[in-house]
Every structure is written in C-alpha cells, then in structure tokens.
C-alpha cells in the first residue's frame, strides 16, 4: 500500500477526537460545541475507514456513511434549535441552557 501505515491514521483520529473533546468541554457557544461534535464524529469515521482498509472489508465504509447521515441530521436539528433560541433574543451560552422551556 502506498502512503502511511494504518497506525498513523489512528493517531490522527485520536488527535482529532481529543481536539473535539477539548472544544466541547471548553467553549461555551453552542455553535462551537456543535462544530467540535462534528470533529469527534469525523475522527470516528477516520478510524472506521482505516480499520475497514486494514481488514479489506467494506462494512466499515458503509458504517462511516451512515454515521455521516446521522451527523447531518444532528446538525440540522441542533442548528434549528440554536436559531430558534437566537430568535427569542436569549443569550447563546451552553451553561444557561438548563431547561428547554420558552
């Protein structure tokens, strides 16, 4: 196989997952938290695809595509919630979203 070893793909995946975790834990804006969640999901996708290549099996790639669809749905609903909150002129801060009551 051309290109780097599978190990390096996994290391990049771990790095992306840690960056996503850091973003979710540190940032307070719900937009940035959603973006960090996307980074974490994509690192899982990278691991799935590299393992799929390692085993020569297609199932991992199919699973990664399903994960992408779920991520897209999650972003649609999350961004809809953020826009709905912003339209009510509330403060966009994760720590203040204690209840989902108008």
């Amino acid at each position: 196989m051309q290109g780097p070893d599978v190990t390096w793909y996994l290391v990049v995946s771990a790095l992306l997952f840690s960056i996503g975790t850091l973003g979710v834990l540190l940032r307070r804006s719900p937009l940035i938290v959603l973006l960090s969640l996307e980074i974490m999901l994509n690192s899982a996708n990278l691991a799935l695809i590299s393992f799929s290549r390692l085993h020569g099996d297609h199932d991992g790639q199919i699973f990664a595509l399903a994960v992408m669809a779920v991520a897209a749905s999650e972003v649609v609903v999350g961004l809809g919630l953020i826009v709905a909150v912003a339209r009510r002129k509330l403060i966009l801060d994760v720590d203040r979203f204690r209840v989902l009551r108008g």
Partner: protein
Amino acid sequence: MLVYAGAVMVMFLFVIAYLGGRADTPFEGGPSWVSFGAVLAATALLVEIVVVIGLKAGDLLTDEAEVEAAFGSPGEIGRFFLTDHLLAFEITSIVLLIAAVGGVILGTKTRAEEELDARA
C-alpha cells in the same frame, strides 16, 4: 459525502453569518479549574489512545489485507449499499427525511414568537 459537504458545512456558514458577532460567546475564562480539567481530560484521552495503539496493537496493525484497485471506489460502495446493506440505506434515508422535517418545524415561527416580535 455530498450531503455532508453540501448540507452541514453550508448550514454552519449560514448560521454563523445569520447570528453574526452574537454567535461566539466570548471566552470568559471561567473558573480556572474547569479549563484545567478539560485540558487534562483531553490530554489523558489522547495519551491513552496513542499508548494503546502503540503497545497493544503494534503487531496486529502491520499485516494489511491485500485489496484490489476497485476497493472503496464509489461504484463498489454504491453496489454494496444496494445489495448487502439495503436496510441501512433505507434507514439512513428515513433519518434524513425526519431531520429535514424537524428542521423545517424548528425553523418556522411559533405564535409566541410572533407576539414577541409584535411587542418589540
């Protein structure tokens, strides 16, 4: 892939533009132990995964399967989606449909919001 690049990233750009400067709550620093704990947790996670990869899986990751050139090509993946993984394909389509409907419902104005706008 198309769904991802098209929908997700364009949606993010649109919402960031829509919310403008209000979107990013300034980083208030907060209690320092919170950010310290967050950095510690993320670093521990990274170190743990890398150590596990390095120590436990070193031999298993070297013997790679031999695959033909068509492995992972779009045509191949599409064929697998429509034969072996048809159920996953259909469930994915239903999930995307429900998400689209939910996005529209969340995006429409409710009566309470219209009253809020009328008062303002």
